[in-house]
């Protein structure tokens, strides 16, 4: 299912990023097409998470540029990224542990809330209407990700796989155009992984969300992504469909063939 006329949603041009003497990314360029699932793979420390952090503006690259929705910038800014429809989940879950799953997901709607602070605090007419509207949206997602049973459970009490799902749900609550998933399946068992795969495919299918994911499980990557970008020591060594990447000599040497 490859896109017929790839429309570029995001363009990364010659991005280089270093922390002191450590070169995290050097001259990395790739495109992300609308509606695709793009996987970024590579050994530990290859710069995968740094790449995501550059895309959503958490890190500012020293060189290169990011073009998102036709606008070219030296660097993104996190609040700008969020407002423009980039959502993400984290490698080590970043939820509000003491809050319920539902409340956590509702925070994902924060940027969409238009009513002023005062009305919200008093919970008056417009604020109430707005909350109902957002709650309905969130409930649809809860139904979508099949987490009805834990709606009112504080997330700190949930098993790891479930927390990951809540985090994905919160990201989706933003109705993102671009979703960044940082190792969505790390530490999961086979069954949880399969569930997560199905959800990622469904999200892509149902909402047309473009997805960039970092993942170590090669089976998963090859199964669900349309294209793969391979990083090694901060450099892009390959890019293409899963089959092309699998056949790439450099990739086999650097990553797949090892062990």
């Amino acid at each position, binding site marked *: 299912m490859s896109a017929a006329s790839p429309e570029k949603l995001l363009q990364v041009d010659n991005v280089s990023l270093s922390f002191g003497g450590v070169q995290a990314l050097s001259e990395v360029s790739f495109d992300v097409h609308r509606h695709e699932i793009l996987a970024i793979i590579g050994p530990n420390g290859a710069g995968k998470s740094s790449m995501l952090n550059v895309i959503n503006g958490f890190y500012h690259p020293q060189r290169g540029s990011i073009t998102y929705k036709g606008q070219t910038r030296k660097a993104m800014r996190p609040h700008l990224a969020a407002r423009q429809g980039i959502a993400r989940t984290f490698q080590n879950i970043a939820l509000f542990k003491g809050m319920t799953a539902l409340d956590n997901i509702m925070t994902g709607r924060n940027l969409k809330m238009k009513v002023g602070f005062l009305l919200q605090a008093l919970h008056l007419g417009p604020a109430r209407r707005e909350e109902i509207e957002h709650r309905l949206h969130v409930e649809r997602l809860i139904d979508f990700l099949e987490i009805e*049973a834990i709606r009112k459970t504080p997330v700190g009490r949930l098993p790891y796989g479930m927390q990951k799902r809540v985090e994905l749900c919160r990201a989706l609550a933003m109705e993102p155009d671009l979703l960044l998933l940082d190792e969505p399946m790390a530490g999961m068992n086979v069954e949880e992984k399969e569930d997560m795969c199905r959800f990622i495919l469904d999200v892509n299918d149902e909402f047309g969300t473009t997805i960039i994911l970092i993942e170590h499980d090669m089976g998963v990557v090859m199964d669900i992504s349309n294209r793969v970008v391979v990083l090694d020591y901060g450099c892009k060594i390959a890019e293409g469909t899963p089959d092309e990447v699998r056949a790439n000599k450099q990739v086999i040497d650097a990553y797949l063939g090892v062990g």
Partner: protein
Amino acid sequence: MSTHPVPEDSGSPKGQLNTFPAMFMEAVRRYGDKRAFFQEKEYGIWQSYGWGESLENVRTLAAGLSTLGLKRGDKVCIVGDNRPHLYWGMLATQALGGVPVPLYQDSIEKEMAFIVDHAEARFVLVEDQEQADKMLSIKDTCPRLEWVIYKDPRGLRNYQETYLLSYAAVQEAGRELLKRTPGFFEDQVARGRSDELAVICYTSGTTGVPKGVMLCHGNFILSSHELQKYEALGNESIMAYLPMAWVGDFFLSLGLAIVGGYTVNCPESGSTVMQDLKEIGPTIFFGPPRIWENLLTTVMIRMEDASWIKRRMFHYFIGHAMRMQKKINRHQKTGLGERLLYQLGRLLVYGPLTDRLGLNRLKLAYTAGEAMGPDTFDFFRSLGINLKQIYAMTEAGIFMAVPMNGDVRSDTNGPPVPWIDLKISPSGEVLIRGPGMFTGYLKNEEATQGAFQDGYFKTGDAGFLDKDGHLVIIDRVKDVSHLQDGTMFAPKFLENKLKFSPYIKEAVAIGQARPFVTAMLNIDLEAVGSWAERRNIAFTGYTDLAQKSQVYELVLAEVNKVNASLAEEERTQGTTIRRFLILHKELDPDDEEITRTRKVRRGFIGEKYKALIEALYSDATNVSTEAKVTFEDGRTAMVKANLEIRNTAADTGAREGA
């Protein structure tokens, strides 16, 4: 309602209330949209569907199905969680003279393929992608299957199969047809006869392949009316959460609900049943023993975590209620003081507790399918819940014995119901005859013949009628066995005793033709897990936790308790458990170790765990094993483990005695 259609009455004039669709239309005339037929929790809110709205859905779906070529007598398989749309699918099928065949939604492909093919179903109605995928993969092995209709389009958008249709599309086609022929639906319903099949329920089959039990409209309508009278029911509210494939759900959620005009509540998902129960507070609740045991376990776990003052109060008042219950069981008088204390308990503990469980509006609570541990039973009755152990079976058109209000006991199933003729064969087997009976097994003349003896249906259960005419079921006829020395040994009885412990989830008692009794156990992961957490015992999963020596100590204490109570009774003192082990995996229907209704398949387990059983009857203190685990999609994996075997206090006693 004054008319009582009799099933034999097949030549009844048109328009009589002799089929479910006809009764359904009558109910619609009576209640319209003023009363809800279904309520379904969706998006966190209970959405309600009135009777009129339901009719509209059934009418358009039926018309749509007929445009696809559904003819009288065609079978329609229905797979999914309890959803109004699937129940409507059943009614729509029946309205056209077709026969719904509900399947267990957690069955694997192989099992589904067998039933779809055996029933010669041309249509399958599924809930969602999960079930649709199974149907697509078995399509080739079921040549008669023509159409797969799904309710929830999620994930199915890009499927190309032309035989895959959405529920909405079928209804849309139905609307077109109804525009051309407005009276189509009513005509079809009027053609229904009471001796036509209402449903085919496949029995889970503890032995061999599943058998399709054929039941007519007349059977159900009669027993629904009778039960309604017997229990003096009015406008009730029920929870539809048990598998649709189980005849009891069909009887309650369609049969009784239509006859009595009930509201049927569908939970949000399988995992939210307990929360939904609390919100609905149904007046009728039907649950197999394991559901009640789960409820009890949850209560016990919660109490362990409660503050000490609550815990003290709970144990004090529950203790009191249980003592009163025991007295009532023995028909002893209770004193005024005791009764006053009970009222105080009701105010402080029993009321709030049943409210939290969602059971405080219950008029009727049934359990069936397996014998229930007497302590579980007493626990709920002592809280003031009218829990009854009934005797029912798919083939019997369900109810055979139901205790009467005011005379409910933990050790009997009450008197046989008046509309059924029940007797005990000389060999001790329960035999029944009556108008509510099934008409045979689908395409299995041999089994049908074999199931009857002189016009009576052989239930396969060993039992007797006590001096008050109450039915007591001992075990399956084939499962009652003897130890080497001839001591009578009813494994299920022991297993139920073991399973009363909150820490033991499943048990298999072994002893046939053996010198003494041994057991293989499953711990309850939730209960033991929480116990372990409180003691800072780290574990990775079931297999790891099950083999912790602390867990063995915990379970040993539970087994010793069971042995102590066995030793009290003369009849059972010879069957105390001398050795046991904790299995490294949970018994699972996917591995064919227990049925989907969680009945232990002894023959299969005896074969599969042969090595373990031999070790139990040797002097070994541990045994290593590996077992195959089957995932829901049919793939398998091996689990290896080294299992410890423990001797109980009863064993030490016996050795010292010898």
